[in-house]
C-alpha cells in the first residue's frame, strides 16, 4: 500500500491523454473482494452528474447467501459496461440513426437530443441493455414540492463534452459515460476516486504499464454476461479466491441471476 493507487491512476490517465483518442482504450476494473457496500460511488455519481431523482449511473446490489451462522453477505457494483458490441446502440439506432455512438476510446455515447426525439429509440435501448444501465430523465427534482428548489439540482453539469442542465436532459435517457468530462480534464471517474474500499480501477488497456492492464494481466477476470457477446469494458476480479476472505462464488451470483 506504499503506492498510492489513486495517484497511479492519475498518472496512467495523463499518459493516455497524451496519445490521440483512438489509441486510448478505457476500461474499468472492479475487485469485488474490496467492495464494502458503502454506496459512496453511487452517491458520488449522483452529485457529479446531477442524476435524475432516485437514479444513479452506478449502483451496488447486495445479497445474503446461505444460512445463519455461516453465510456470506455480498456486494456487487455495476454501471454501463461500455460494451464494444453494445446492444443498446444497435437497438436505438434502428429507430434513430446516430442516437447512440461508440467513441474510439470505447465510451458509448448517448446523443440526448436525438434520443429525446425518439421514444421508440429510447425504449429499444432500455430493453436491449442486459445490464439495466439506462435511466429515464423525467425532469423531476428531489426538492420540487418542498419549500425550495435547491441549486444543486438546477446547476450546470458536464457530459459528453457538453454543458448541460436538467432542463436540457428532461425527457431523455441517461447512463454512465465513464465521467468523460473528468477524463478529458485529467481526472479519473468520480466513482473510482471516491471508493473507500479501493475496489475500483480505471485506465487505458492499451497501455501495458497502466494499473488496469496490470490487474487484468495478473488476476482472473470475469465480465458480466460475456456469453451474450456484448464485449463489456468493465472487468470484475476476485471471484475465486476464498482462501482468506469471505467473498462471493458464482453460486452467490445466482441469488440474483437465475
Amino acid at each position, binding site marked *: 500500500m506504499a503506492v498510492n493507487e489513486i495517484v497511479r491512476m492519475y498518472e496512467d490517465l495523463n499518459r493516455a491523454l497524451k496519445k490521440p483518442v483512438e489509441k486510448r482504450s478505457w476500461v474499468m476494473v472492479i475487485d469485488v473482494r474490496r467492495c464494502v457496500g458503502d*454506496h459512496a460511488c453511487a452517491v458520488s455519481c449522483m452529485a457529479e452528474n446531477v442524476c435524475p431523482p432516485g437514479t444513479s449511473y452506478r449502483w451496488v446490489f447486495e445479497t445474503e447467501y446461505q444460512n445463519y451462522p455461516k453465510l456470506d453477505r455480498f456486494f456487487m457494483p455495476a454501471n454501463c459496461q461500455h460494451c464494444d458490441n453494445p446492444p443498446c446502440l444497435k437497438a436505438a439506432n434502428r429507430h434513430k440513426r446516430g442516437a447512440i455512438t461508440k467513441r474510439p476510446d470505447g465510451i458509448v455515447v448517448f446523443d440526448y437530443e436525438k434520443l429525446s426525439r425518439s421514444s421508440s429509440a429510447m425504449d429499444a435501448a432500455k430493453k436491449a441493455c442486459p445490464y439495466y444501465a439506462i435511466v429515464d430523465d423525467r425532469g423531476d427534482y428531489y426538492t420540487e414540492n418542498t*419549500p425550495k428548489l435547491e441549486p444543486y439540482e438546477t446547476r450546470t453539469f*458536464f457530459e459528453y463534452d457538453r454543458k448541460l442542465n436538467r432542463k436540457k436532459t428532461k425527457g431523455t435517457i441517461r447512463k454512465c459515460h465513464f465521467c468523460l468530462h473528468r477524463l478529458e480534464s485529467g481526472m*479519473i471517474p468520480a466513482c473510482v476516486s471516491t471508493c473507500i*474500499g479501493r475496489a475500483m480501477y480505471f485506465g487505458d488497456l492499451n497501455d501495458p504499464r497502466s494499473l488496469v492492464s496490470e490487474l487484468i494481466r495478473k488476476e482472473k477476470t470475469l465480465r458480466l454476461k460475456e456469453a451474450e457477446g456484448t464485449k463489456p469494458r468493465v472487468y470484475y476480479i476476485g471471484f475465486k479466491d476464498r482462501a482468506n476472505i469471505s467473498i462471493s462464488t458464482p453460486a452467490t451470483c445466482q441469488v440474483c441471476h437465475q
Partner: protein
Amino acid sequence: MAEKDKSCKISEMLESIPQKEVTRRGLLKAGALLGSSAFLMGKVEKAFGLLASAEAATGGDYPLAKAENVIYSVCLQCHTACPIKVKILDGVAVKIDGNPYSAQNMIPNLKQKTSPHVAAKIDAKICPKGQAGVQSLYDPYRIVKVLKRKGPRGSNKWEVISFDQAIDEIVNGGYLFKHIGENRYVPGLKDIYALRDPKLSKAMAKDAKAVAKGKMSVSDFKKKYKNHLDVLIDPNHPDLGPKNNQFVLQFGRIEHGRKELWKRFLAGGFGSVNYYEHTTICEQSHHIAYKEATRQPKGGKWGKPKSEHMKPDALNAEFAIYFGTGFVEANFGPPNMAEKVTEGLQTGRLKVCVVDPRMSKSAAKAWKWLPVKPGTDAALIMGMIRWIIENKRYDERFLSAANKAAAKAAGESSWTNAAHLVKIEKDGPGALLRAKDIGMGGDEFVVVKNGEPVVVGKDAVTGDLDYSGTIKGIRVKTAFRILKDEAFSKSLSEWSEICGIPENDIIDVAREFTAHGKKAAADMYRGAVQHTNGYYNGQAVIALNLLIGSIDHKGGLSKGGGHWHEDGGKLKKPFYLKKLHPNKLHAFGHKLTREKSRYEDSTLFKRDGGYPARRPWFPFTGNVYQEILPSAADGYPYPIKALWIHKGTPALSIPAANEQARILADPNIIPLVFATDIVIGDTTMYADYIFPDTAIWERWGTPHTSPDVLQVSSKFRQPTITPLTEVVEVFGEKQHCSMEAVMFAIAERLKLPGFGKNGFGNGYDLTRPEDWYLKLAANLAWGDKPGQEVPDASRDEIKLFMRARRHMAKTVFDPERWERAAGKENWRKVIYLLNRGGRWEDWKDDFLGSGMQVHRFGKQFNIYAEHVALQRHSLTGKRFSGIAIYEPPKDAAGRVIDDSGYPLQLITYKDILGGQSRTLPTDYWLSSILPENYILINTETAAKLGFKDGDKAKIISASCRDGKWHLPNRGTKGVIGKIKTVEGMRPGVVAVSWHYGHWGYGASDTVIDGKVIKGDPRRATGLCPNAVLRVDPALGNACMTDPIGGSSSFYDTKVKLLKA
C-alpha cells in the same frame, strides 16, 4: 502491488501535471489584491463572475478541475470529520470530494508542498454521507431567520422575530409568552448571571471545594462570604456553586475550535460549570476505559490519562478483532479504515474477526463473524483470556516489565502494571501495594521477583506475573493474577454459555489473536460499551491487547499520529489562548450531572445520609448527556433556569426518550429553553426560540483526527460559501446568524469578560467568528515546536486564495479583516494552511513494515485501575472493580434487570449511509438508496413469532408497554416498522438502525407567521426505537447508565414484537 519503490513516483507524477493555469488571470495583480479594499473585492467578484460564466467550458476545461473553484474544509456528516474538497460552481457548492492532502483520505497523502493547482485535479475518497453534504447544506427545510414559538412547546407554531429582539428577551427575561396566554415570568440570563466578580469567584471556588471535602465548615464559609451569599444557589451548600450554574449548555456535537470557544463563553465568561456534549449517548465508556487504563501515576497519586482511545494499525496488522464495531460503518471512521482492511484482505496480509450480533458490512468481510449475545463481550473475552493464559500464549516478557526502564530493556516502549502487587482487602482487591506499606520506601509500587518484594524505582524492574501471597502480613496478588482469577472463575463452557459463542470459536479467535506476534490488535466502539457494563467490556478489550503487548508496534494497537495544537499551548505563541482571557470568571460547583465529582466529597453526602445517593454521581466520566434533563426535573442537585440546546436532539436520541421530551416540554421545570439549529429539529421544536446556525460547510472548526491515522494531522474547517442564514449585527459587526453570533450577542449584552473590543486583552478583538478561528489557524500554522511552521504562501498561492473566495460576501470573507484576525505576521502562513484545509505530516515508508511505530504512546498501561477500584458506587456504596469483569445489565441501584416476558433483545446500529444527524433520510441522494429502516430479525426467529418479511410490527418493552412515542403537545407515534428477515442476525435479537422516525427536521407540517409549510413524507419514514429503550427502574425518569463510564444503555432492553 505494494512494492516500496513505487511510492517515490508520486512526486514525479505530480510534477508532470502542467501547472500553467496559474497565470491565466494576469489582469488581477497580486499586489492590488493584497492591499484590497471592499471596493476592490467588489470589482474582483464582478470580473470573476463574468469570467466564470464565460469559461464554464467543456472538453478538458472542466471548471471543477481548477483550484480557483475549490475550497478545502472539513466534513461533519459524522464525527470522523473527513477533510474535504468543496467544489464551487457559480457560487454554489456543488460537489464534495476527499482532500488529497489529508492522510485520512489518501495514503500516501499528497506532500504538503504540492501545488493546490495539482491537488485540484486529484480527488481523494470520501463516504456517501460526505458526498451528500451538498444536500444537508442546501436543505429546503433549513431555517435562516430567528423563530419564537407561538404555541406551547412542541406545537411547531412559530413567528419570525428579529435577532436583537430574541437576544434581548433571552437576556432580560420577562413575561415573554403573555401574548399566547402564558402568564409566567421567565427569568433572563441577566438574573442568572449572579456572580460577576472574577476575584470573588476564584476565592469562593477554592473555599467551596474545601467545604465539599470537609476541610472548611459551612458556617465558616458563610461568615467569610456573608455579603455575597445571594450569588449562591444554596448558601448551606456552597459546593453547588453560584446561581450562574443554572444556565446550562446541552450541546450535542461540538468539536474542537467551537468547543474551546464555548467553554470560554460559559465557564470563563458566564461562570457556569454546566456545559455538556453528547458523548455518553455515543461511546463514552470506551473512552473512560482507555482513560483509566492510561492514567499515569504521579507522586503517589494518579495524574492525567494519556489516551482516550487507540486503534489497530490496520495498515500493517495481520489480525484484528472488532468488538461491536467495524471498519465500514460508523467507528472512527470508514474512509480512513476501510481501505487499509480491504487491501489487507485482498493481499492476504490481514484477517479480521467481527464481534456483533448483526452481520454488519464489516462482518461481511470477516474471516470469522461472532454473533455474540449483546452486552456479553467481556464474557467472550474472559473465555479467550482463560485459554490464552492456560496455553501460555501471552507475552510474558512484555507483561513482566514493571517500569519504563524494563520496557526499554525488553525492546518495548510501553509497559503495564500487570506485575504490580495489589492489596487484597476484605471487600476484594483494593489499593496497589506501595513501598511504604512494607517499610521499603515511599509511594513506589512493588513487585515480587522470585518470591521477594522488589520496589519499582527508576531502574529496570521486572516482576513475577502469577503471584498471590502475603508480604509483611499484607495479602497481595499481582494485577495479572487478579485478571487470571476472574478469567478462571468460570470454565470455558460457562463463558461460552454466557456469551452465546461456541467454545471452538472462542478458541479459534484466541489462537489467531496470539499467532501473529505484535501484529494484532482488538478494537472496540459503541456496540461493546453502550451497556450498563460498558466500562468493564472496554477494560476487557484493553486487557486482551495488553496480553499480547502490541501497543506501539507496527500492526498492533496504535495511538495514531495525533495533531498539532490549535490552542497555542505548546509553543505559547502566536496566540496562547488560555492566557488571553482577561478577567476570566472561575466557574465552580458540582455539575448538574454530578460528573467529575465524588458523592463522598459533597455536602449532600452528609445531608442525605450517605448511600444511596438520590441520583448517581459520576466521578470518572463526563458529558453524561442523558442525565441533564432528568436531573433538572428532580432538582438534584439543584434546579436550572435556562437551557441552550445546540446540535443535539435529546428528545430523539437518548434512550427512554419519552422522559426527555416530557421534561423539556414543561416550562415549570426549565423556564427558558433556546436553541441553535440548522432546521427545526425533533428536539429544537420544543425550544422557546430557535436561532439559525451556520451549516458545517459555512463555518469554522478544528476537529481532531482518528487514532487510526498514523500521520500527524490538523484539519481546518472554514467557510466555503456565503452562509445562508440572515445577517445580524453584533458588536457593530455584520455577520451571519450562527452559534457564535448568539454567543457574541449575549456576551455583548452582559459584558462577559473575554469578548468584544480587545476581548483577547492583547489588542485583538473578539467580535466575529474569524477573530477566534483564524487565531487557531495561526497556532496550527506555527506548529508545536520551533521550526515546525508551514511556509509562507507564495504570491501565486495568495492570488489563488483570493480567487477561490470570489463568490463570498463581505459578511463572511474580507481579506483585510481576516488578516487582522490572524495577525499580520502570520497571515501568509495561514493562507498556506487554508489553501490546504489544514496540515498533515508527509508520508514516509517508515509507517509501513515491522518494528516500533513512528508515533508511540510510550507510557504505562493499567491492567488494574486502582483509581476505579478505590471508588464506591454512589447508590450501593460498594466498590467498583479495578480489573475487567463480566457483569449482567444492572439498574442504577445495582440490581440485575429481569424483564422476563420480553423475549427479544433490541440493538441499534448505523448504516454507512447515515450519520448521527442530517444524512438519512433528509439527504435525498442517500434516502433514494435506503428510503426507510426496518426491524431486522433472523428469518427463523421471525417465523417462530409468526412474522414474515414486510409485515408491520410494533415494539414494546417493560417501560414502554404501549410502544409509543409520547410527544407533548403533539400526540403519540407508534414505534412501528417493517419486519425485514435476514440470515445475518443472531436469533433472539432484533436490530433497528438509527436515522429514521423523525417528527421534526421537515418531517411534519410547520406553521410560521400563520403560514403552513408542508412537511415532506420522505423525511418521516421508518422508526426510531429510543422510546422503548428501558427506563431505569431505580430512577424512573432516565435510561439505564454505566455507573463508571457513563454510557447510556442502548442494548440492554428486552422487547416484544406485536403485529401492527
